[in-house]
């Protein structure tokens, strides 16, 4: 029945070996792609939530076509300190994987007509214009769904397509969506701790709202696809990265609802579980957790400080006296390197020296993560030899799957590089037609 299992010995081999053979990253290209029947048109602009959605769909085999204005998507400019590689910014080079790249000027009537014609052939259209803009141009869901009732249309914006603030003309960015999600409000050092500038609500260093938004984009397109499988009909998906990240904000709204309490910042501590915290070590910092009664018992065993169990006997004690307990932890960890702490915890866990589960990890800078063989063994990082952009180190798709694993085929394409192929394939436009469109700067 299943090719994926054919090469795995069915004799009882250890689970890890079985799982590795079944999901071996080196054999990915031998296996089929789950979404190779899907066509996606991503005409978003300067929006990494949209780009991450089309990346995910393309990693799973969809034919994803990026539409850029003739000068290129402004997202190609969103790069740290202006750093570019062959005229394209680094953020974009990460999220252009497996996508074909064509140009089309949607500000011209002729460009919009071409988009509508392309959309007839598509399963998914993704955009990030201000709400109402595509509709006013005659290429919104209302119009495209008449031409193609099976179309799944995903629109990104900060405030959404409906609701009291929908008409506010707000460009969608990561930092503003992070702010609206409420996550920075509960992250960072409390007032009075250290300099005023850093004792502030703190955003995640990466574009987390955009990535969460893009993840929900892929999830909801796939849900719409499941529905289309049953009904034959497409639909309109309205998605905001701000609400997407807000959905993840733990007990925030329910706690306010039942107790009118608002979570405040606690830096490296935690108000729901403790110890679950970052501690200073001889050479760096480590995360350490042992928060339930039995796990705290395990932690105090590893520390060799069983006397800490009595003053911090219950979950509540440990949370309410977290600062004091944190000092005790640092008294111990200050004498040890992060590696020594990891070894002690692993010795306790692997040799079952006592009750409880304790988790620890050294605080990694990205360079440290890159130096660990675990991630390379698992294919988490990949050096992609791209025909246009040379060798690039990229984070690979995060899933290992036995039957239809995702994959990277190429990293990026120059602006308009696939014009000839895509316009010929879908619209039958030949060299003369493209020349005329180019002369009018439509493509």
């Amino acid at each position, binding site marked *: 029945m299943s090719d994926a299992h054919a090469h795995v010995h069915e004799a009882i081999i250890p689970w890890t*070996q079985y799982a590795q053979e079944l999901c071996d990253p080196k054999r990915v290209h031998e296996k089929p792609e789950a979404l190779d029947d899907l066509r996606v048109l991503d005409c978003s602009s300067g929006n990494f939530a949209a780009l991450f959605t089309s990346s995910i769909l393309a990693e799973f085999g969809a034919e994803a076509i990026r539409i850029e204005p003739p000068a290129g998507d402004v997202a190609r400019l969103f790069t740290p300190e202006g750093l570019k590689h062959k005229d394209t910014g680094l953020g974009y080079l990460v999220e252009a994987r497996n996508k074909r790249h064509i140009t089309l000027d949607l500000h011209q009537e002729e460009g919009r007509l071409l988009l509508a014609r392309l959309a007839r052939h598509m399963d998914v259209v993704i955009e990030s214009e201000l709400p109402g803009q595509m509709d006013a141009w005659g290429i919104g869901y209302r119009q495209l769904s008449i031409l193609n009732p099976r179309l799944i249309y995903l629109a990104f914006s900060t405030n959404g397509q409906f609701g009291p603030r929908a008409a506010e003309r707000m460009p969608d960015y990561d930092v503003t969506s992070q702010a609206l999600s409420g996550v920075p409000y509960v992250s960072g050092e409390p007032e009075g701790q250290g300099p005023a500038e850093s004792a502030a609500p703190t955003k995640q260093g990466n574009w987390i709202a955009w990535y969460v938004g893009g993840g929900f984009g892929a999830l909801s397109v796939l849900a719409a696809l499941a529905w289309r499988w049953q009904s034959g009909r497409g639909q309109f998906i309205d998605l905001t990265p701000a609400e997407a990240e807000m959905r993840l904000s733990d007990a925030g*709204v329910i706690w306010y609802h039942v107790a009118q309490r608002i979570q405040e910042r606690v830096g490296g501590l935690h108000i729901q*579980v403790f110890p679950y915290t970052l501690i200073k070590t001889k050479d760096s910092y480590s995360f350490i957790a042992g928060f339930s009664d039995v796990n705290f018992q395990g932690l105090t065993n590893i520390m060799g400080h069983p006397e800490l169990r009595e003053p911090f006997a219950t979950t509540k004690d440990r949370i309410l006296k977290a600062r004091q307990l944190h000092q005790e932890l640092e008294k111990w960890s200050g004498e040890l390197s992060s590696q020594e702490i990891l070894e002690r915890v692993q010795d306790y866990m692997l040799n079952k020296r006592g009750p409880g589960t304790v988790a620890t990890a050294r605080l990694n800078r990205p360079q440290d993560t890159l130096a660990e063989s675990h991630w390379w063994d698992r294919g988490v990082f990949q050096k992609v030899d791209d025909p246009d952009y040379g060798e690039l180190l990229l984070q690979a798709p995060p899933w290992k799957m036995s039957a239809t694993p995702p994959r990277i085929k190429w990293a990026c394409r120059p602006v308009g590089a696939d014009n000839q192929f895509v316009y010929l394939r879908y619209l039958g436009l030949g060299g003369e037609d493209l020349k005329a469109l180019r002369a009018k700067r439509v493509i």
Partner: protein
Amino acid sequence: MGDASLKAYFDWTRELFDRAKIFDKPEALRGIRVLELTTLVLGPTTADFLGEFGAEVVKVELPPGGDTMRYVTPEATYWKNASMGFFPENHSKYHVGIDLHSDDGKSLFKQLAAKSDIMVENFRAGTLDKWGIGYRQMREVNPRLIYVADSGFGQWGPFSQGRASYDAVAQTVSGMIGITGFPGRPPILCGIFIGDWFGGLMAATAALVALHHRNRTGEGQLIDFAQSEGLIRTLDWTWLRLGLTGRDRGPAGNRDAALVPAEIFPCRDGYVAICAARDGEFQGLCAAMGEAALAKDSKYATLEARQKPENMKTLLERIRGWAAKQARQEIEAAAVKHGFAAARVATAKDKHDDDHLRARGSVWEYEDPLYGKMMEQGPAPKLSETPARIKWAAKPVGWHNHDVFTRLLGLSPREIKGLEERKVVGHWADRNGARPPAEWDGGTRI
């Protein structure tokens, strides 16, 4: 874009996405059953995101204590005997208590898996295989099963053995904490379980990809998902820059080195995030600040000029000075007027009280038969034909035993009683987090 056409558009979207009509529409994942054997946040969110779209989620817990998340709640306080930390990732589920250490318990579980489309677990690698209810055994029972194994470090590889993992382990090993916070200050944790939640989102996405494959071929599969690897995926340009230049990334406070200007600024009554990366938006921001000349200054006129570190620094200082004199609302209003992005750093109260979020169902109000009026973060994506929804709140351990065992396995009340007496099946412990509210009438089981 004319005002009239915009108004017509928003009239149409208001009707199309009307919160009041959600329950008159079908569900995208109707007929899909998810068998969940998970604890804490990563596994439960994987199932919850599928449940929001209409999958029937049967959540199996080990009685009588159940899921550890039942005891993870703000400041260790309980509401109506329930953990507030347990509600956000456990909606509309059927709660079943089975002791999986017993052979009869395993057999019951297998019978449920035989009737499920997706199974989600988050034990340490190999645990369920050892128990005889892992992927290897389940695929014999049900070749169509999509088996999602959530974990910290994956099902294989050096870190998969002997290392426990939580959300913050993933934050730590992925490098996320290493690029977050302020230079020279102690590292901070993200204030939410971001590695778990994002992981659940990624795992649910892969489950739907596998469902599409199954629709085409009839074949199930194994999905090995590690939350640390999910966060690594989100670190945007970090890895690429390291590969190209050898330059590592550290914390940069609240500013974004790629989008300039973008930062969180203190103002008179709180904090506001501002971003004006495109040149036209930047001109709007300068106009709002009363410094139109700034937009023409060659140091700031283009994004590429603003991205130069020395220019970024001086520019952000000027914006900081301006923002400090404004109120949150004044900056937000200026952004709408001048066409750049600005938004308050929202508190839980801001979100709870927001009419916009309520109208959109992103703050979701409902009445639960056991807990009464509930207010929670609602489903994020808004689908016009098959909108996601919350039906009821999380329930005590084993709450739906009778319903599930009768409906899915055809067990009689007497057989269920026998299983209870042999402690194969069970329900809640008499402790906060596991048990029903004190005011429960002893009858209602919805």
